């Protein structure tokens, strides 16, 4: 088991004071801090190996290419993909989902088809599908969320998951509710009606073991920066048979096998989907993030973050007038975040006051506007945890919230 008390030492950004108080960083669902080893990997790459990848015949280019393709293999292993070719580097989850929607959706969707989403999707797993629906004439349909307990209404799955559904896209862990969805079951059910599955793994990838073949999904999208990695790099995992049948979505260098004045031929995956100079330096650093998280153990991270969420949920539930979202920890295991609202104090006022105590929170709709509207909320305050957070920090949060409530009640 990792020594959680020393994990904090790995993250230089945590060792600072904010407004005179030790930083309590609880905004990890937005972006996580980076361990020194990841920062060092990135700067060492720029200091020693930097050169454009592929087609290079000189020493640095070969080193750079090896490092980039090594990172691809590392990430394939991290999520148990069948082959490195199933890993496409993107800018992040959003770009990954846009790639699937535009390329797979553009080639396969037509009027009369249905795109099934859930009501808890982040805008990044919603707007790309709205765009492709408009282009192809396919219709959007939603699997409902039950209410404040933040569960997918599985009793209604049969009614919405009909043979017209060609793609079912859903989040692994909700960024505003903290719900861990039963992704393996959802993929199996989709397969029965012949729908492909796209999972938004942004909130899951750095927080729990993810095995794409055990889950049985067709696509899995995630970002590096929420898994102790750098910004600007993300991944689209896709099953090779699907990727090989998909048209390119951006054209340029690196993705062609032959170009003529009037037409071109494409390389196979993954190069087909990586037009232009890829973000190789950040990809190499992402490989280091995988090493870091595996050294801690992702099953251990899941326990640690889930336990913090449980403690936070229980301590926060004692505050007068609080409305907590997502499943109660006694009901089912939660992802490492808690989201809450008060009738009389707006989330942005809470975030401003908490900041005065050195606490970094996030308030607002969390890119979940339709869900917030459905729940009758204008937004929530969210505290999200990672490997370096401690139960003592939850006490600091609760104390700060007590002060804020008192101030606004005054």
């Amino acid at each position, binding site marked *: 088991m990792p020594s959680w008390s020393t994990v904090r030492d790995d993250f230089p950004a945590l060792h600072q004071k904010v407004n005179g108080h030790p930083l309590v960083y609880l905004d990890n669902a937005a972006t996580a801090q980076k361990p020194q080893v990841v920062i060092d990997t990135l700067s060492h790459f720029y200091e020693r190996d930097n050169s454009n990848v592929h087609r290079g015949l000189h020493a640095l280019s070969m080193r750079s290419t090896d490092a980039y393709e090594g990172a691809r293999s590392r990430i394939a292993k991290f999520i148990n993909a069948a082959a490195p070719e199933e890993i496409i580097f993107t800018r992040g989850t959003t770009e990954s989902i846009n790639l699937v929607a535009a390329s797979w959706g553009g080639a396969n969707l037509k009027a009369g088809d249905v795109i099934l989403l859930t009501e808890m999707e982040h805008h990044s797993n919603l707007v790309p599908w709205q765009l492709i629906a408009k282009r192809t004439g396919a219709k959007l349909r939603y699997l409902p969320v039950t209410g404040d307990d933040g569960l997918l209404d599985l009793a209604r799955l049969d009614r919405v998951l009909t043979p017209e559904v060609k793609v079912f896209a859903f989040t692994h862990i909700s960024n505003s509710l903290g719900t861990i969805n039963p992704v393996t079951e959802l993929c199996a059910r989709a397969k029965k009606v012949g729908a492909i599955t796209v999972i938004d793994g942004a909130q899951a990838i750095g927080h729990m073991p993810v095995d794409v073949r055990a889950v049985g999904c067709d696509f899995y999208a995630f970002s590096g920066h929420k898994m102790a990695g750098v910004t600007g790099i993300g991944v689209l995992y896709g099953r090779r048979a699907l990727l090989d049948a998909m048209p390119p979505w951006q054209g340029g260098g690196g993705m062609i096998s032959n170009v003529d004045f009037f037409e071109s031929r494409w390389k196979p995956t993954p190069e087909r989907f990586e037009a232009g100079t890829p973000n190789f330096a950040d990809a190499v650093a992402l490989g280091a993030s995988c090493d870091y998280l595996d050294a801690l153990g992702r099953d251990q991270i899941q326990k640690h973050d889930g336990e913090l969420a449980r403690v936070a949920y229980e301590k926060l539930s004692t505050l007068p007038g609080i409305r907590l979202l997502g499943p109660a920890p006694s009901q089912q295991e939660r992802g490492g975040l808690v989201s809450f609202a008060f009738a009389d104090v*707006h989330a942005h*006022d809470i975030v*401003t*006051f908490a900041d005065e105590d050195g606490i970094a929170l996030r308030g607002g709709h969390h890119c979940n506007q339709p869900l917030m509207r459905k729940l009758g909320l204008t937004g929530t305050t969210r505290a999200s945890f990672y490997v370096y957070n401690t139960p003592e920090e939850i006490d600091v949060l609760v104390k700060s919230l007590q002060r804020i409530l008192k*101030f606004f009640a005054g």
Partner: protein
Amino acid sequence: MSDLSDLYQQVILDHNKRPRNRGRLPTANRVAHGDNPTCGDQCNVYLRVEGDRIAEISFDGSGCAISQASASLMTTQIKGKTAAEAEKLYQEFHNIVTTGKAPEEISDVGAFAGVHAFPARIKCATLGWHAALNALKGDPASATTESHLD
């Protein structure tokens, strides 16, 4: 960071807790909507303009204490005024929240001087005003605080 009590003055807390002129105005002949996409703050302003004066005004919406209190106070400031007078009052208010300097003769709006130390909140303080000015211009389109307006 400046002391939060500079930002959350008593006047602001009072207007947030007991907003003036809150709700829909059934007799309104001008309406405009304002929003602040990043925050999700919303503000509708309803006016009944008679001749060249604002005879009645109300607002509704949701948002942080700063945005709600500012919209509330705004309604008390511009009721009975002409469009030109309302515009002038907005300019004065804008100066207060961007410079932190409150002229002595202005009372309650001076409470918003503390906003200037929190640049991210200036758009909260001006949201209701933008909606009101748009309503006066007869422009029901959204006043958004995230383009040229601030």
